[in-house]
């Protein structure tokens, strides 16, 4: 369908539209008009993504100059695939003259088609295997030698030949390209899909990629450098964006890292000696270049691109590298001293917490390395490794980590702390010392994004309380709004279960969670539900260790065997491959009607981005409140920072964080208004107002007072009633005063009478 929002013609790929999608688009358009940032919370299952894509694409078509580019950031690669699939659907509904180019970008591991490179097991080795074939000096050597003597990548070579005649020669025809499509195209044409995609993001109208490509300064410096200001940046599923920002700037150093770094340094020293003997001029050239500063780094070959500086690069590019690390030997000795110093710090018996200022002062006094040298470590290493023509970068990851750490410590004085722990809190008998540089200020990583791009849209199903995010991320949205959901029928049924069938309270509170009574009551709950609910059921636990424990106890008690009488059981493990296969099988079990249960973890990978819509999830059980591990030093330090800087109370933040995770877990059951699902919050603490009120509004509005304090048998009764009700036919368009499904006609009517819209 096609309709007007003010002066923009919006192309929407469906015959009908939900009123909240329309409202969402209206708000979004206003934000784009105002060229400002915005924050929008809309319940899952109301077609957020398609509304976003449809409006922004239409907006770009309505205002062709300056060309507006959409950078769509997703948390994971599979979400990227989903988004591209929606985009493809939208594309088939656009007028043929308005075709645009959209593509997804991922790492070499997901895009490479070279069979030799792909045969390497881990992603790091894929990167370095690629580099071994495509680095500029390797190609130069290959050009000199007879063909075949030095192996190169035929895909890259043919792409390079095609691209050398001008960018138009390799320009992709308009369309939507998923990672699979890019690979297929690469195989067909014999071009390297990875470098093709890297080149194409300059010309594409829509680019879909991972958060890191914008938030991690190391990556953003290369990938997103050329993006113009006229970009709309969308962070979808952004409820965890503060954590992603923090992770991007956090580094930890373990004993293995230091040992590896020592080995790396040793090897680099050997290389330097070799070069001195054979090709001393090269080292001298590097020295001269460093005197002039790092600014000229821009003209490197495409394939030599390295991680940029982990801190914000602009501050550093203008300065010259300090004199005492310009010579390669000097720099190596600085690094050796740094590694030695860190080794000494790791040998502590007690937990130590330090601010970066103190740490830098201590490095300076004990190792003789000042702050400026620290700050340049990363770039200096980068330059040295290029000079030494090192291609097996996967061998040198450890020293990179150390330099990364040094640069971060040397750059930021605020919002960080350094924590040294001699052992893991939960396993005190195993010595495993870690030095962690942890970032507390989420706004640091995202600041350049807000500064550079004209509109940044942060959206998710759970952004409650919505006023907290601008504070955490330190920005001023022009629009911040939370939408409710207009339902044709009560198709979600949240319940709070506080007691088991024996009327004893259930909770995952620390003192109660291993109580066999609680374990049994949780098991009985699952058993009853498995017998009553058709198709798929998803269970979320508070942590891996808790899940392992409770599943083992259920196995011993025989509950698991009873559950398996009704449904197959699949479990998320820490092994991603196994979890993916388990999910795939879970879906197949739901498809074929056998039905299955999926056990997952609230902060795990599955909870982050897998949908359990329709028959894949008719019921979600959240066992317990997914609080963070509160004894973690990092968390304590972060809470302290939040209290001092933003005046956010510890308890409030913890509850907010736990409840957004819980809401995110249960919110995955609904895909559309025709869908239906139940949500059980199985913990007595959910019945307390301070916890419950942190849930997003669209869940709260369906949480009846009668469902706040249930026992297992009552919950079972409600579930049966609910399923029976959902099986009845209903009027999709909604009856009475409020329509829940709008056709083109309705929209036109509303357009004529804008005052009477909502």
């Amino acid at each position, binding site marked *: 369908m096609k309709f007007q929002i003010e002066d923009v013609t919006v192309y929407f790929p469906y015959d009908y*539209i939900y009123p909240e999608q329309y409202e969402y688009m209206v708000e979004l358009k206003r934000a784009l008009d105002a060229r400002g940032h915005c924050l929008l919370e809309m319940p899952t299952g109301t077609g957020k993504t398609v509304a976003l894509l449809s409006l922004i694409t239409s907006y770009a078509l309505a205002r062709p100059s300056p060309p507006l580019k959409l950078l769509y950031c997703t948390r994971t690669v599979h979400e990227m695939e989903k988004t591209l699939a929606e985009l493809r659907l939208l594309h088939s509904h656009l007028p043929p003259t308005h075709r645009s180019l959209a593509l997804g970008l991922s790492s070499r*591991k997901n895009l490479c088609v070279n069979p030799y490179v792909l045969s390497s097991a*881990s992603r790091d080795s894929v990167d370095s295997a690629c580099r071994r074939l495509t680095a500029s000096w390797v190609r130069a050597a290959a050009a000199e030698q007879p063909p075949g003597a030095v192996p190169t990548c035929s895909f890259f070579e043919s792409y390079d030949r095609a691209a050398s005649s001008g960018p138009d020669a390799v320009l992709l025809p308009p369309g939507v390209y998923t990672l699979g499509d890019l690979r297929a195209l690469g195989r067909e044409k014999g071009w390297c899909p990875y470098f093709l995609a890297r080149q194409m993001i300059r010309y594409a109208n829509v680019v879909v990629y991972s958060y890191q490509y914008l938030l991690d300064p190391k990556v953003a410096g290369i990938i997103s450098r050329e993006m113009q200001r006229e970009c709309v940046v969308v962070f979808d599923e952004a409820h965890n964006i503060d954590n992603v920002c923090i*992770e991007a700037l956090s580094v930890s150093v373990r004993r293995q890292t230091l040992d590896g770094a020592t080995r790396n340094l040793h090897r680099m020293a050997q290389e330097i000696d070799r070069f001195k003997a054979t090709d001393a001029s090269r080292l001298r050239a590097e020295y001269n270049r460093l005197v002039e500063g790092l600014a000229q780094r821009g003209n490197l070959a495409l394939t030599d691109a390295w991680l940029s500086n982990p801190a914000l690069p602009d501050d550093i590019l203008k300065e010259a590298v300090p004199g005492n690390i310009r010579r390669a030997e000097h720099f190596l000795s600085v690094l050796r001293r740094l590694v030695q110093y860190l080794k000494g710090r790791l040998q502590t018996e007690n937990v130590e917490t330090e601010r970066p200022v103190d740490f830098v002062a201590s490095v300076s006094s004990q190792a003789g390395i000042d702050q400026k040298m620290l700050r340049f470590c990363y770039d200096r290493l980068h330059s040295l490794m290029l000079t030494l023509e090192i291609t097996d970068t996967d061998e040198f990851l450890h020293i990179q980590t150390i330099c990364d750490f040094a640069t971060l410590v040397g750059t930021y004085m605020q919002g960080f702390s350094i924590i040294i722990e001699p052992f893991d809190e939960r396993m005190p008998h195993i010595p495993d010392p870690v030095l962690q540089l942890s970032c507390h200020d989420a706004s640091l990583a995202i600041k350049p994004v807000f500064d550079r791009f004209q509109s940044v849209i942060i959206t998710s199903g759970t952004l409650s309380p919505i006023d907290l995010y601008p504070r955490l991320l330190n920005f001023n949205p022009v629009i911040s709004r939370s939408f409710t959901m207009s339902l044709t029928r009560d198709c979600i049924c949240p319940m709070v279960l506080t007691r088991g069938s024996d009327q004893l309270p259930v909770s995952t509170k620390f003192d109660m969670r291993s109580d066999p009574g609680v374990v049994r009551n949780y098991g009985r709950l699952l058993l009853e539900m498995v017998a009553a609910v058709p198709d798929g059921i998803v269970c979320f636990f508070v942590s891996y260790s808790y899940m392992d424990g409770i599943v083992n106890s259920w196995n011993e008690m025989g509950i698991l065997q009873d559950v398996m009488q009704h449904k197959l059981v*699949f479990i998320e493990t820490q092994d991603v491959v196994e979890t993916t296969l388990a999910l795939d099988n879970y879906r197949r079990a739901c498809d074929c009607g056998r039905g299955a249960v999926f056990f997952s973890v609230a902060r795990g990978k599955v909870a982050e981005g897998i949908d359990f819509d329709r028959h894949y999830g008719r019921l979600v059980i959240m066992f317990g409140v997914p609080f963070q591990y509160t004894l973690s030093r990092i968390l304590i330090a972060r809470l302290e920072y939040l209290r001092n800087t933003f005046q956010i109370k510890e308890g409030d933040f913890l509850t907010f964080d736990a409840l957004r995770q819980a809401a995110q877990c249960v919110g995955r059951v609904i895909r559309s208004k025709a869908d239906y699902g139940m949500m059980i919050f199985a913990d007595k603490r959910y019945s307390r107002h301070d916890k419950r009120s942190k849930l997003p509004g669209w869940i709260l509005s369906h949480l009846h007072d009668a469902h706040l304090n249930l026992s297992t048998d009552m919950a079972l009764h409600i579930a049966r009633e609910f399923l029976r009700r959902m099986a009845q036919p209903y009027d999709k368009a909604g009856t009475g005063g409020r329509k829940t499904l709008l056709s083109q006609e309705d929209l036109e009517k509303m357009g004529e009478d804008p005052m009477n819209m909502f």
Partner: protein
Amino acid sequence: MAVINMAAKYKTTVKEPGTPGVLRMSEDKFIFVPNDPRSAMKLNVNFRNIKGHKFSKDGSKQALLNLTQDSEKGGGYIFEFDNFSDRNVCRDFVGKVLGKFQAVTSSRQNEQPVPEKPAATVHSEQLSTTEMERRMKLLWEDSELQKLHKQFVIGGVLTESEFWATRKSLLDDVVQRTPKQRAGFRSAMLADVRPSTDGRTNKVTFSLTPEIIHQIFAEKPAVHRAFLNFVPIKMTEKDFWTKYCRAEYLHRTKNSVAAAAEAAEDEELAVFLKHDDILANEARCKIRRVDPTLDMEADLGDDYIHLPDHGILRDGSKETADAENELARRTLSQDLNRHATVVLEGRALDVELGDTRTAAEALARSKQAELCTETSDEKTNQERLEKVSRMTEIEDLQAPHSLPYAPLCIKDPREYFDSQQANAVKALGDTGAGIKPVDFSLKTEEAYTYLLEQISEVKVRGLNNLVVQPEATLKVLNGLNPYLSSTKYHLGKKPQECVLDMLPNRTKDELLHHWTSIQELLRHFWSSYPITTAYLYNKVLRLKDAMTHIYHKLQEIKEAVQSDFRHQVSLLVQPMLQALDAAFAHYDTEQQKQSTKSGNKPNGFVQ
């Protein structure tokens, strides 16, 4: 039938060791002669005294055959055989003999007036047990068929084969249905064998059945491979499973030190404890074909260029597992996932779960076949893409897709629709409202004018295109008229009500039964013509006798009913009698023809 001699042990109870000897079975009795001539365990039993037989499952510990004397008393003769094939020969023999005896006794019990003819046994062709089972199943499911079978086959009117010949299609249906209904794996985790202890000693016992072993093979390819490699070349099957159980026990007790020590000493044992490399390979293959919208493996390190130790390491959400242990810890979660996967794949074997070796080989074969079919990757890729695009659409924002559906299969349409109608009527009665009676009544003038118009039209056009022959119509109308008028008088109002429902239950049942019997007999009767063999002649004779019997019965019913139903019943019986009369008439004319011909051919019938 032949006589069977087989070496066996005779036992009075299952537990005791038994007396070795020779079992000799003939058609009417079995004789057991012990090897030791001094033994008193001589038997000479007539099969007439045997009521049934039981036997142990193939693949169980002992190959037993139990000939039970009396189901109430439970006494019997237990024989243990050296192997299952010997036992199965005896079992089949006993089954046949007992079947024959039972058929004879049951026919006697029914006390049919028809004299016992040898035809029933003479024509009993050698049937396979599956065929037999299929027939039994059909009879079991359909009570009407069972009644007919009892009446005619056991009554000796029709032979078994004659009876089933007309029902080939029914049997074929059953045949076709069976392969689709292959049983998959059970949901229960059998492979998770739990040891039992006797409580007094330190001994633990694992018990494995063929089904459990099959599941172990399917879920643990490494064990499967080891079995194929080691047994019986390197070790016996028993040793193999002992080792396996030992490894399981070590795993279960979570005694990793002991496990490591044992594995270092014994390389075969280590196979069970080590990480399963076949599974890992399989997983790597499968991950490529997974739906991209849930491929979490792709995220792993998608942060463009990856550095280790980034992000927050120790915030409690991630657990640092020590992967140094070479004997990788197999967790319960992995077992559960693996089990569910295998159940879902439903890799069923076509061989019986008897011998472990054959089961293992069959499993290997089926896996091989699976590998071959995996080549059609392109097509699955296409399907996957279609599925993804279908999944992304929001279903209620657009017109519904027409998905392929399986047609509804109703086993007995008549029963289904009748019950539906009855329900509908009942529902109408419940709600009280029902369909409003449509007013069909016309005024006389209207009807008259309408008819007048019709007549004038016919006058103009003439009766040129007749749907039916007028004479035939008239005949039918005349025939129906008295019936209609009378029934209308009695019931009229409700069209759903049937004349049959008015009759007493016994009469109704009898009438229905006779109706089906007559149909069955007539079908056989008419299909026997032209009579070409002596066999057919005999059959027709038998059928004619049965039909006369029923004819008399019908007459009796007609006379027996109360006077107020007599008219109804006679109306119902009329068509049956007519059909029978027609058959008799045909028989008589044929008979006359035959007799005139037989003058020319004195030796009897046409061969």
